[in-house]
């Protein structure tokens, strides 16, 4: 148990940090490594204080993402519980083989005789001025990769709880944070029991439209829902939280009530995970659907650096509101 007083209000990045402290304390077999995470405390400060407290179990690495993830796997197979940080989700691309062909296969191919209890933390998405090599939202890739668990915490509470759940898991888990969420504050109850993995959450109830979203788009969607409410449109917002395991039941139940579905993510629309949600809806909830299913996401372009262009590309409450209005517009159909 940590001795510090339990703050009730934490910034997202502090929640991540608290979860890491908890993990290194709870699991003597845990290790944390990544670029600039130990002595400098992490490029975004997520790992602050860990090295001071846990010494050699927390260390800096060369700029070698394939080695980082591969070493995490090898160490996990030999009884460690590694937690690695990949600075930007975009950089996972240089380590993709280790994720796709190594980490994800370990348990399956050995029938569980080898396991890979490791956590890959990263952050993704755009920020003003970030270039095309630092702005990807690629959760759909990993969700298409059996053997991995995928979580995208949308608030400080989940940043803390989902990361703890990830680290406690006996499976490899990827946690995608969003750097624009790092400064956001919210209530976090520290040191409670670790939650089971999975579970979508209804973050606003409504009876007209089901809006399914995750990560930073949860707050944008809530803003849009608020604006829609002023127009009399009752939007139910579902924070999907985990893409794997996927809790579609919450979506289905909501759709049964609303008959209308909008899916929102920051990722490019084509091939984004929104397609999967739409596909499940049109299979499992077909008879509940009263209107076409709409997706809101970045159009199919690399993310430009200029904020003027980014505004045009990144979904926001405006584009979400438009989709809500469109899906509810009976005259359109």
């Amino acid at each position, binding site marked *: 148990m940590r001795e510090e007083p339990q703050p009730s209000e934490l910034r997202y990045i502090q929640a991540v940090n608290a979860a890491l402290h908890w993990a290194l304390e709870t699991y003597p077999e845990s290790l944390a490594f990544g670029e600039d995470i130990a002595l400098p405390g992490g490029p975004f400060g997520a790992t602050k204080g860990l090295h001071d407290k846990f010494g050699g179990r927390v260390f800096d690495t060369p700029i070698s993402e394939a080695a980082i993830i*591969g070493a995490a796997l090898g160490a996990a197979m030999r009884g460690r519980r590694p937690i690695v940080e990949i600075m930007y989700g975009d950089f996972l691309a240089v380590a993709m083989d280790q994720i796709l062909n190594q980490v994800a296969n370990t348990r399956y191919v050995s029938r569980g005789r*080898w396991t890979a209890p490791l956590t890959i933390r990263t952050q993704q998405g755009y920020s003003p001025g970030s270039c095309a090599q630092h702005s990807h939202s690629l959760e759909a890739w990993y969700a298409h990769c059996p053997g991995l668990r995928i979580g995208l915490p949308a608030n400080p509470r989940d940043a803390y709880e989902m990361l703890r759940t990830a680290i406690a898991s006996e499976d490899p888990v990827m946690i995608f944070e969003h750097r624009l969420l790092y400064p956001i504050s919210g209530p976090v109850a520290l040191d409670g029991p670790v939650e089971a993995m999975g579970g979508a959450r209804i973050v606003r109830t409504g009876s007209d439209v089901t809006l399914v979203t995750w990560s930073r788009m949860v707050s944008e969607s809530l803003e849009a829902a608020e604006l829609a409410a002023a127009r009399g449109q009752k939007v139910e917002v579902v924070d999907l939280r985990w893409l794997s395991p996927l809790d579609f039941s919450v979506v289905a139940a909501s759709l049964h009530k609303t008959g209308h579905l909008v899916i929102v993510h920051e990722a490019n629309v084509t091939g984004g995970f929104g397609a999967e949600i739409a596909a499940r809806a049109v299979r499992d909830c077909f008879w509940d659907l009263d209107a076409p299913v709409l997706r809101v996401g970045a159009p199919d372009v690399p993310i430009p650096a200029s904020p003027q262009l980014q505004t045009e590309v990144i979904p926001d409450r405006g584009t979400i509101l438009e989709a809500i209005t469109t899906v509810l517009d009976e005259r359109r159909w």
Partner: protein
Amino acid sequence: MAAASIEDNYRAIGLIRAFEDRCMELKGEGEIPGSIHLCSGQEAIAVGACRALEARDAVTATYRGHGWAIARGVPLTDLFAEMMGRDSPLCGGRAGSPYLSSATHGFLGENSIVGAGLPLAAGAALASLYDGSGAVSIVSIGDGALSQGAAHEALNFAAVYVLPLVIVLENNRYSEMTPIASMVRIDPLSSRASAYGMPGLTIDGNDADAVEDAVATAVERARLGGGPSLVEALTERLVGHYSGDAQQYRPAGEVASAFEREPLTRLRNSARETDHEMLERLDRIDQELSRIIESAVAEARSLSYPVAGTSADHVYA
């Protein structure tokens, strides 16, 4: 200095050869599906190296890793069964020839992505820094793997943290169908080690004793906290890159002359020079091995195929 008897070396190497020869037959008869990659001619490397290891150590190999599995003590029956796609105690047929592993033998597995075993083996070595096991991690890679980015990253990673890792580079002169000599500008390959600040050494990979000595030195160094080292073992493939390789890219006479240098021929030559009964003893070993192989095949055949409906098991905990 290692000095296994001629018979012991012959038995250990011959076992792998006999196993793989039988695999090729089984493949020809359709009992083993997919491509298989034989270590025919390279067996002395795995044999010598594994003699330098302890049970607590970790072993990682490539798709050409049957010899490592056998030298590590993985039962032949299990290997045959795995390769046949049967419900073997190794991986239940899910891994097959190029990707099998055995958790009970510290055999982290083969890997069919070139170079990818190295980061993983570095991770196994990393674990040893924390678990008090004193275990060393050993990894076999091919000559071609030196050109892979992940291999490079792992070599540096291992050097930086002084990991107890031994890299055995099996230089069989070819990467698939392309001579390694045309794909690097260095010679010997072990000179690459200095780029990471680790010792590198080139040895005769067709001599199990020489391999044992070199690997034992590297293992001891690793175990005592001296960090990683690279042992390049020179060898030759007696067969194709994989089961379907016609080897048209190999110059005329190359394979034939390799047969004069390969470990079993050498041991028979030594035997001939030693005493005139030795050759007979080796012949008896051959017979003994073929009995062992046949009973393993028979046992493997008695294992069932994976039970229908189980293909979705073990994706997650």
